[in-house]
């Protein structure tokens, strides 16, 4: 598992120049070939049912909205988008089947997803072999690699960015150093817990307690007791399992242990609220979130977020009771494709790769994206903000205290 950090910002000059040159060349070529009116086919591997479907459902709303919006405005350079959605139900075997179907049968121009890292790990090599540009929305670090998967571009933050910011917050802002790490025994949980330990080690900190727990374990009082006995002054759970996260908070509350919890974004999700014994158990709970869905000191969300939210609000029936960043991410994936096709002037796969490789500071709703020839993770470090968990409002949060 490589942990090399690739600088998030690239030098600007040469990339922009070459992009301009490329665009010119491609533009000339397109001009002579005549206007292409075939649809841009986008395959969307989504886990609309099964475990972790809540994120996929929200992302799906963003994706569909963006596609409709672009098609209503006349498409991309006059080409309509054809969205081909496949429900993988979170099963890697199904995801592989559908990925094969999308590239071999449907001959799509782009693939978005899959949603879960376990599925993405399986599909990314397949899509790479077929040479199809793939917008990655899984956080696991191994999903991107400019050599192995040159056409896989990540839109979401990496796991490392999440964990790194959470660690920074715990160590620098909260001034804690005795960390208890809790992971679950799923694939995601184990690798994240490992990663968290490695990153802490870089900062010179060895966790006082570290444990992997079955995601369905019914009671965590024992683990939390051990963490307290080990002298922990901050608990960092790295798991996407709602039940487990809720039990961490419940055990802490029931023990009346006054310790901050900093960890995975899922700990801020609304489903957690229902699982808590008492609402105040959500106090002192922080997680990695995004500046795009964080209220400023003026109580307002960033402009693009507000704009999208206003446009989409009728679709949600007024209230937004899920984390809104999933919607912005889904929306952005389509906008990234739009940008790539426009820049490349076609859906030619190599041209699209070039176009995305030379993308700098593409303004999005979820974040501003930059990729480079050796950089496949487009999400900027600055897009991460630590949020306060119990401030959920319209799918967004307040920043954690500094």
């Amino acid at each position, binding site marked *: *598992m490589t942990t090399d950090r690739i600088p998030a910002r690239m030098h600007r000059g040469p990339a922009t120049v070459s992009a301009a040159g490329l665009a010119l060349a491609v533009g000339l070529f397109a001009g002579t070939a005549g206007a292409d009116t075939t649809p841009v086919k986008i395959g969307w591997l989504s886990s609309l*049912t099964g475990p972790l479907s809540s994120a996929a459902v929200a992302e799906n709303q963003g994706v569909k909205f963006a596609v409709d919006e672009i098609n209503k405005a006349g498409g991309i350079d006059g080409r309509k988008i054809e969205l081909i959605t496949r*429900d993988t*139900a*979170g*099963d*890697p*075997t*199904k995801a*592989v*089947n559908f990925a*094969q*179907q999308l590239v*071999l*049968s449907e001959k799509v121009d782009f693939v978005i997803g899959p949603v879960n890292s*376990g599925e993405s*790990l*399986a*599909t*990314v*090599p*397949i899509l790479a*072999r077929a040479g199809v540009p793939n917008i990655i929305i899984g956080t*696991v670090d*191994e999903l991107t690699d400019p050599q192995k998967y040159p056409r896989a571009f990540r839109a979401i933050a990496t796991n490392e960015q999440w964990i790194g910011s959470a660690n920074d917050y715990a160590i620098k802002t909260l001034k804690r150093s005795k960390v208890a790490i809790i992971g679950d*025994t*799923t*694939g*995601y*949980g*184990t*690798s994240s817990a*490992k990663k968290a330990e490695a990153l802490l080690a870089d900062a010179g900190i060895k966790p006082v307690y570290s444990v992997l727990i079955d995601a369905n374990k019914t009671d965590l009082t024992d683990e939390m007791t051990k963490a307290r006995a080990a002298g922990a002054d901050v608990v960092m759970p790295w798991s996407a399992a709602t039940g487990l996260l809720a039990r961490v908070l419940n055990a802490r509350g029931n023990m009346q242990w006054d310790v901050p919890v900093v960890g995975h974004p899922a700990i801020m999700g609304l489903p957690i609220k229902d699982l808590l014994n008492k609402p105040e158990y959500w106090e002192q709970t922080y997680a990695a979130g995004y500046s795009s869905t964080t209220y400023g000191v003026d109580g307002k969300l960033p402009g693009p977020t507000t704009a999208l939210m206003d446009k989409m609000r009728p679709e949600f029936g007024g209230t937004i009771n899920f984390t809104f960043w999933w919607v912005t991410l889904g929306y952005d994936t389509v906008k990234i494709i739009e940008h790539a096709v426009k820049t490349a002037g076609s859906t030619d796969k190599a041209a699209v790769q070039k176009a995305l490789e030379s993308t700098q500071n593409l303004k999005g709703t979820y974040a501003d994206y930059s990729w480079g020839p050796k950089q496949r993770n487009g999400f900027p470090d600055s897009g991460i903000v630590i949020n306060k968990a119990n401030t959920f409002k319209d799918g967004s949060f307040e920043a954690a205290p500094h």
Partner: protein
Amino acid sequence: MTTSSLPRLGTLAVGGILAVTLPFWVGDFYQLHLAALIGVYWVLISGLNLVVGYTGQLSIGHVGLLSIGSYAFAILVGRYGVDPLLTLALAGGLGGLCGFLLGLPSLRLPGFYFAMATMAFALIMAELSLAQGDLTGGGAGLPVPGFAAPFDTPTGFYWLVLLVAALITWMTWNVARLMWGRGLIALRDSEVAAAAVGVPIFRLKLTVFTFSGVTAGIGGALFASLQSYITPETFVFELGLFFFVCIIIGGRGSILGPFVGTVVLTALPEMVAPLAKLGNFFYGLLLLAVVLVVPEGIGHVIKSVMARLQKKGPEPKGLQPDIGRLAAAVRRGMRQDIQRGHAS
């Protein structure tokens, strides 16, 4: 188990030719991928069929053995650069060894106990593949290399799968039609009769279960290569249930039935989207319907319909012993018996 008739051979030949030439007339590569997947599943299922369909041992946890073959292939080829074809054999050997070790304690247990033991085995394998992160990549999983030329293209890989599947099917067919098949069915239908003719019950069960471990290991290696990436989440318990359901629905004591079951159950959810959504509910419903309506499976229904069609004319009725023939046959047997000096 009776002699194969001419039309049957004809059907087999046509089927074989269709299977071999599939890459040339199939609609697109996706369908070829599906065909390869069916073949890979069948490699495992045809071995499991001897355990479940013939011997009547209800193993619902073969996905654990599948995962062993998959990880062995991913680790040996991916990390140590062992030759893929050699690894295919090694994966089979390892699967067989694990099947043997699993069967040793559990095959002595009565039915429900055995089923639960195999289910627990599948869960334990999932747990170990997560916990042994240094070996298996833990939750992040492992990339799996493909085979070397000429098996490195979808078509080449399909032919490799076809070759392996045909070989294993032929082997299970031999086992089923010759003496071992009768012994296995005796274990399934009447242990008393089996004992009366001297069938060593436990040894047979263990041998066949070990063989199913070999096919599961080989199937696992092919499966991993087809998937190109494996994580513990690839080997969910439901997959083991799926293999099992294919056999039961296809029909116990038949090879064609489970094969049809595998083809239909793999392809159906791909073709009919609403079924995919229902997922396991659909498999459960099918299983329940089969158990309640045709417990011998769909293969059996086809067989009896065929038998009814083939039935010609009224058969002579009533026992007419031919004492001369009987005495001669018995005496001949006795003589051979003395010749071999009763060597037992």
